[in-house]
């Protein structure tokens, strides 16, 4: 169950653009957007997932640059469709003023793909990498 440090806050305050830290304390990206449930009439929407990656970031930028960002992100994706990488709300461990901690390791998140690609195709091939 997610622990929230504060009872009342706005999404802007504690969620959007915050840093994600995985269960090993490693940075795992930023919250680019939020996914909310479609509420029944009279009921409040519920946070169902945090969204990451260019297809979430682009629309938030807005304008032509945002469209381009989103388009580039879409073309780089393995799966078709432009729905952003989801981090299910159940994976959120703790939210405070500083960061959002996750229950999963970053290797298991969808948003990890670009990093792995850079590591394998570019950085891993330069001699002297200490791994």
């Amino acid at each position, binding site marked *: 169950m997610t622990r929230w440090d504060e009872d009342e806050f706005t999404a*802007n305050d504690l969620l959007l653009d915050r840093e994600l830290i995985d269960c090993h304390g*490693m940075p795992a990206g930023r919250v680019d957007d939020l996914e909310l449930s479609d509420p029944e009439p009279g009921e409040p929407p519920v946070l169902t997932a945090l969204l990451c990656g260019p297809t979430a970031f682009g629309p938030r930028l807005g304008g032509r640059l945002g469209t381009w960002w989103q388009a580039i992100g879409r073309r780089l994706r393995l799966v078709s469709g432009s729905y952003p990488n989801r981090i299910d709300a159940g994976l959120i461990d703790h939210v405070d003023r*500083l960061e959002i901690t996750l229950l999963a390791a970053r290797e298991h998140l969808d948003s990890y793909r670009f990093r792995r690609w850079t590591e394998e195709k570019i950085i891993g091939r330069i001699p002297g990498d200490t791994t």
Partner: protein
Amino acid sequence: MKAVLSMTLGVMTAIGGFVDIGNLVTSGITGARFGMTLAWAVLVGTAGMVLFAEMAGRVTAVTRKPIFHVVRERLGVRVSLVNAAASTFLNLITLAAEIGGVSLVLQMVTGISYLIWVPLAGLAAWLVIWRMPFQWMENIFGLLGLGMIVFVVALFRLPTDWHALWHQVISPAVPAGQPAPTWWFYAVSLIGACIVPYQVIFFSSGGREEGWTSKSITEMRVNALIGFPLGGLLSLAIMAAAVPVLQPLNIQVSHLDQVALPVASAFGRAGLAFVFVSFFAATFAAAAESALSSGYSVAQYMGWSWGKRHPPSAAARFHLVCLASVIAATAFTLTTIDPVTVTIFAVVLGAAAVPLTYFPILIVANDARVMGQRVNRRWVNAAGTFFLTIMVVVSLVSVPLLIITKAGQ
């Protein structure tokens, strides 16, 4: 004892790290051309740098988040994108200027054209980023940079008119026969040479690399409050040394090697050797730091893992940005554009961009919910706000001055 030793080391590296190609060029030019009438600009710039770096360092120590985390979280996704893009662009020009500076120093020593040295300097800077442990990098080059003390000592050997220098410091005015816009332009450039955005990005991100916590605040403060002003003093010494040697001969400084002439007059070859080593260390360290800073700002903005404390494979995209910056800046310097001109542009545009990073730091340092008892004191706030006003003015006038004076001609 060990704590004192480590603190002394920290201060000494802060002194060496404060001075870079921007200070060398602007201090040399202004000393020869305007005497000490622009010393106030160095003082203003240094005071601003101390204030800014202390706040950024404190925010990093308390929140464990360096500057560009804060920028994005506070300013939102759109405004902070402008911020990140501007900072990265400035880091790149600064990096190009520093690589040019390293190459010019090597040309001074060897007599071989600086263009030959540019790719080697770029490669060496990248190797430091890639392989050298963070603390080694800071300490080795910071300590070697201290050799610039030779400028202070030279003042006692040269026919320095202390009375006249002091008079110019305390009652600044545009010297006769010099155009006022140019004088103001160089004032902006000196301020910009002291408060360089990459140095603050590096200072705060470096704090994270060294694992600062709230307990490290004292050490960080000592570095900023003692180290940076002493660095500013070196900058003033370079300016002052030009006054008895270059000004009477009406020499206008337009090359880096002219900045070293006063020391050669005072101490001959031994003095020059100090200048060569310390100039090299200062520019080379600054090259590595400004390249790292572009990596820091992009990675922090995007939320990628970053830093030299991780092995490169664990911060792959951060290292990719650093590598790309070094390549781009090296290529830019290889276009044979004059590194001294690039330096002037870098410091003036840098001065214009200071509010972009300074403003969000000021806000966060004021937020008691985040900072707890480490929140800004009232007088820090007053000073910080006053300084923000100055920097906004500087930022507004810098580009018009750049155009009117044709970059200080």
